[in-house]
């Protein structure tokens, strides 16, 4: 049930990303809604097997996007891994964990894409990538990080209601 919902949510985010957020550009960078969703869900205390959400997101983005298929899969898995690690270490300050996880996830995702493109012999300048795409993309992701965290916290509350102590 949770995974089916994950497919629906991530598919909706991919559609939103391609149709709407691809036009919201800062320099040449855009927000990554799927990465934000994966990270926000991974930070939820009660969420289990969040790596499955990363795989679903990676498969969906890999199918739609022209970047090498494995790049999005590996990128989202690593981003989810960082979020899970932070959840265990910084559990007392979830907002800070979300900000840090977003920052790390964005860097990981973008650098993996750069590496994948270079492996595919696409001429990509590292300096230009950092200035024009990576840093603006990180800023946009950070702006959306907390709203995503709150949304997914509510979603986790709905899916995993708190147990009543008798």
């Amino acid at each position: 049930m949770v995974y089916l919902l994950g497919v629906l949510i991530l598919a909706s985010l991919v559609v939103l990303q391609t149709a709407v957020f691809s036009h919201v550009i800062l320099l040449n960078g855009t927000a990554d809604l799927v990465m934000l969703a994966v990270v926000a869900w991974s930070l939820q205390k009660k969420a289990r097997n969040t790596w499955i959400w990363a795989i679903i997101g990676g498969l969906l983005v890999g199918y739609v996007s022209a970047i090498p298929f494995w790049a999005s899969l590996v990128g989202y898995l690593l981003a989810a891994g960082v979020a899970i690690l932070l959840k265990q270490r910084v559990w007392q300050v979830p907002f800070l964990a979300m900000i840090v996880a977003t920052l790390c996830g964005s860097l990981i995702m973008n650098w993996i894409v750069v590496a994948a493109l270079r492996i595919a012999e696409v001429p990509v300048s590292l300096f230009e990538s950092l200035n024009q795409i990576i840093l603006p993309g990180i800023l946009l992701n950070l702006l959306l990080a907390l709203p995503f965290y709150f949304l997914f916290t509510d979603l986790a509350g709905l899916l995993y209601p708190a147990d009543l102590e008798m």
Partner: protein
Amino acid sequence: MKVISSRSWRSVFLILIAVGLIALALGGYLTSITRVVLSPVITAQTWLSTRFLALQNYLSAPQDLAFLRLRNVELEAEVSRLQAEIIDLKQQLSETRVLSALVDFARVRPENRYIAAAVIGRDPNPFVKYAIINRGSDDGLRKGMPAVTQQGLVGRIAAVTAGAGRVQLITDPASSVNVRIEPGGAQAVLNGSITGELALEMIPQSANVQTGDLVLTSGLGGNYPGNILIGQVLSVRSRETDLFQRAIVQSVVDFSDLQILLVIMNFRPVDISPLIPTPGAP
């Protein structure tokens, strides 16, 4: 007899007084008297009428108010509907203008068969420049078909599904187009970049390239048809120590506002890889 006569005289006398008063009134001689007499009557009438109307409005206000509120809601709904219709019509007008320009473009080039496709999205990753269109293999699209607008070259089909396709724009960093620069006729290669900038590479040093020169597809390599306009040279960088000149091109197509494009259906890219000699082969 005396009684009848006295009554008759009294009646005649009263009639004469009434006629006299009426005659005086019609003559305007009683104006001041009537004014004085009627003034308090009029004042009382006005006071009573005002109070009555106020009471009547007070009692009938709820019905009027409810009716007015209902009518207001109906009118607001009608305004919203009309505003939505205006927006829809404006969108249709904009699409009609674009399609009209594309039809004119197609008429000028009757040798090609075109199919129009709407751009429904962009690649979710900002490093690559691809557009997603609402036509696919069910509509006859195949990988490698070029995409143009009435202004110039857009790109080519990179992947198709049954109902959608992905177009690699010429601004994509992995895109390379063989071009010809006019009026000089020099051959070069047009490359995209992650910023969307178009750069002309491998321009011979002997070529005389100026700002404003037109850049068209040359048809070499078989990936694109020839003589499709791409843009104009914006700046040229020529150093004696370099093997080739380099230039920046301004595309005629506004890729940030791409809504509808034409796919050339009757062009098949030529696969020249078997003709390229491999190292070590006899």
